[in-house]
């Protein structure tokens, strides 16, 4: 059988089978169509304003490398007039980030784009190596994720850039959709699929003459409809030099589970990755209160490894802690079981009390319940025997306020600013500042100096 010819140009030999539509095409046609499709995504969503300064979140990995290359190409080709810069975060992980940053430095030269590297050490006074030395290998990913989210925003503000693009691809987004379905996290489900995820104050008028503050940086994912496979193929055929930046990172159990599902779905029906993305977009509209949320809430924390770990942080197993087992899923199973138990028992106990005392015994079982359940309990409780009225219980108000800090954010959060650093947070002090406080407590206030003439 003679080699198949390209379905587009009908001259070259077909080298590539596109997963999204089974088209067999040649490499030059593939590169052209890949770029056209990204351009289509950008123009159909009005992603950029003419002349806008845009920072490309660059890790040196395949996704951000392809994103930088494609945006540079398209910007020149279509005269979008974008002022592109590369923005890298240096977590300070020796043997991993230092190598990938070398790749980013080469890209900066190759594509003639200025590069800004923001390091954790500069921003927080702690590199990840130091954090690991302090807290150990378990749970350090929580720090990394929380820090990274702010770092991109702060780095962008330093550059005077109001818009950061990240290399999230269709596979990543599909994975996040399934993961949030599995964890039952509707607010995140509704945020995962939006191509632009701006922080709430981005909707506010820019202060002064468009001065950029780190609290109003817009995030977007121009590669949201691009298959991971095609990104790899694009990088290969364009001979892009990238660094494989897989951290010594073990995925969270839910993400790992979702990733396996996505890979298997792709094998069964390659189109299904985009179908999951589409489903996610459609389901986001069905989440109660979705529209309000999408316009008001801080979002876009999905930063690869740090994916769902926004500033509101879920304490559940960071990448490090889930290494041993499916820790995260087991933890959630446990929590759900306790919820059920608390609900079953709660119906038998009187909990509505005028007194504002805390009953630690019941508090434990009920900690995890959400406010709605608490209300049911109260209702049922009222109908029950008055004999139980002697049991002192935490009241609803107290319960609600305690809940804030827990995972699974309540349906509505008030977003304010961290009183220490001014970053967006639903609590008085943001997660990063809380983590930093813990770290700094253990660090001597002044370094030990040797010698030095006095």
């Amino acid at each position, binding site marked *: 059988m003679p080699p198949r010819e390209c379905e587009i140009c009908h001259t070259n030999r077909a080298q590539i089978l596109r997963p999204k539509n089974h088209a067999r095409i040649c490499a030059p046609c593939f590169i052209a169509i890949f770029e056209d499709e990204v351009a289509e995504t950008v123009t159909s969503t009005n992603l950029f304003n003419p002349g806008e300064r845009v920072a490309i979140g660059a890790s040196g990995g395949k996704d951000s490398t392809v994103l930088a290359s494609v945006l540079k190409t398209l910007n020149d080709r279509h005269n979008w007039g974008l002022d592109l810069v590369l923005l890298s975060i240096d977590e300070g992980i020796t043997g991993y980030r230092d190598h990938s940053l070398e790749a980013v430095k080469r890209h900066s030269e190759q594509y003639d784009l200025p590069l800004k590297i923001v390091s954790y050490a500069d921003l927080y006074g702690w590199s990840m190596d130091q954090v690991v030395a302090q807290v150990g290998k378990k749970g350090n990913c929580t720090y990394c994720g929380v820090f990274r989210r702010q770092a991109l925003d702060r780095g962008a503000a330093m550059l005077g850039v109001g818009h950061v693009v990240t290399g999230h691809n269709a596979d990543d987004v599909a994975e996040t959709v399934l993961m949030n379905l599995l964890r039952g996290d509707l607010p995140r489900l509704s945020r995962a699929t939006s191509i632009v995820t701006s922080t709430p104050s981005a909707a506010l008028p820019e202060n002064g003459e468009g001065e950029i503050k780190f609290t109003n940086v817009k995030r977007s994912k121009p590669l949201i409809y691009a298959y991971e496979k095609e990104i790899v193929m694009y990088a290969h055929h364009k001979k892009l030099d990238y660094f494989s930046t897989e951290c010594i990172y073990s995925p969270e159990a839910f993400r790992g589970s979702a990733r396996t599902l996505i890979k298997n779905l792709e094998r069964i029906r390659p189109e299904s990755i985009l179908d999951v993305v589409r489903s996610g977009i459609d389901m986001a509209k069905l989440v109660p209160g979705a529209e309000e949320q999408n316009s008001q809430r801080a979002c876009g924390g999905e930063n690869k490894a740090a994916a769902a770990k926004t500033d509101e942080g879920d304490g559940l197993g960071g990448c490090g802690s889930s290494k041993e087992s499916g820790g995260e899923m087991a933890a*959630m199973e446990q929590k759900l079981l306790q919820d059920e138990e608390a609900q079953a*028992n709660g119906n038998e106990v009187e909990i509505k009390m005028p007194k504002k005392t805390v009953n630690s015994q019941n508090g434990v*079982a009920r900690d995890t319940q959400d406010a709605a359940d608490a209300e049911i309990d109260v209702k049922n409780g009222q109908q029950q025997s008055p004999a139980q009225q002697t049991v002192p219980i935490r009241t609803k108000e107290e319960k609600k306020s305690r809940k804030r800090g827990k995972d699974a954010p309540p349906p509505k959060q008030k977003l304010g600013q961290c009183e220490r650093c001014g970053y967006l947070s639903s609590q008085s002090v943001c997660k990063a500042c809380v983590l930093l406080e813990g770290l700094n407590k253990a660090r001597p206030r002044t370094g030990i100096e040797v010698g030095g003439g006095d």
Partner: protein
Amino acid sequence: MAGRRNLPPADKSLCRRCQSPDTAITVRTEPLCKACFDKYVQTKVVKRMETFRVKNSEPGKEKTLLLPLSFGPCSTALLYTLSRHLKNQIDKSGRPGFKLHVLHIEQPDEPPAQPLLDQLQSRFPEHTYAAVPLASITSLPHLLPSTLQPPSSLASLLSTLPTPTARADLSAHLLRKLIAHHARETHSAAILLGDSTTRLAERALAETAKGRGFAVPWLVSDGPISSAPTPSEAGDGQGEIPTYHPLRDLLSKELVPFVAFAEPPLTPFLRTASESQAAPAAMKNSTIDALTRGYFAGVEEEYPSIVANVVRTTSKLQAREVGAGELGCELCDVPLEGAAPERSRLCWGCVRTMQGVGAAS
């Protein structure tokens, strides 16, 4: 307080409810004996049947509820528990709250169902029974999408589809349409599906993967939905028949032993689905439904609450309001607005399923 369940049991190996030493199964960390397990399942089903209580029915004019039976453990368990429920209703108040009509849809490759239905009828003579071959859908062309016209045989219809996933998807929708059609024919007030929690979670995930995320709320919720789409089978003025899932609080792994424990045994009525549903060796030849089935089979073993949580979460999604006169998808009957390419009579998910049909015909 009596009945507090968090009292530590005298012995962890005893039945958590009656302290009998003969425990038969562990249900969500609680060891239970056969009798208590039986009561557990029965209670969960009865709780979901509140709409059809005796006081809601008119004496002598009980509503007919359609129970599609596949001879699998779940639908068989539903038939069994509802039969007992009806008996209890009669014992307590002298009359039933509803009538059951059992319908089996014969798959193309399965042996005739009549002998099994006859046996069931002698065991549960109070219900009516019917068997309809899936292939009969071709004689009801108004149920089929216009792209599949004119319908020939079911086999040739399915063979026009290139992938196992598409074939399974089309069959499932034809099955659903045929059940709904039969429900209308028999003037049934509702359809009672034997979907367990596990099954609902599987379907929610599978439909998401097939691009029908927007339809998930209709799929997993119970009862009449105000914004339900108009069925494509227009003209008989009946509108949509509400669907209920009385087994929605039970896991598949609980229903399999439940059926096995029944006395006298229900096992003669079970058909092992494993032969036709066995996963093929190569992932490529598998189906999306089989993938999610396998996935949740694994999850429900270790993390049953997570399965239940998926169903609970997806049930919280709010189905979109449907405009008056809005068209439904010709295959899956969900409203098309925003869910389909322009001028298409099929939604995105069904466009995907029917991909290649035009090319083949």
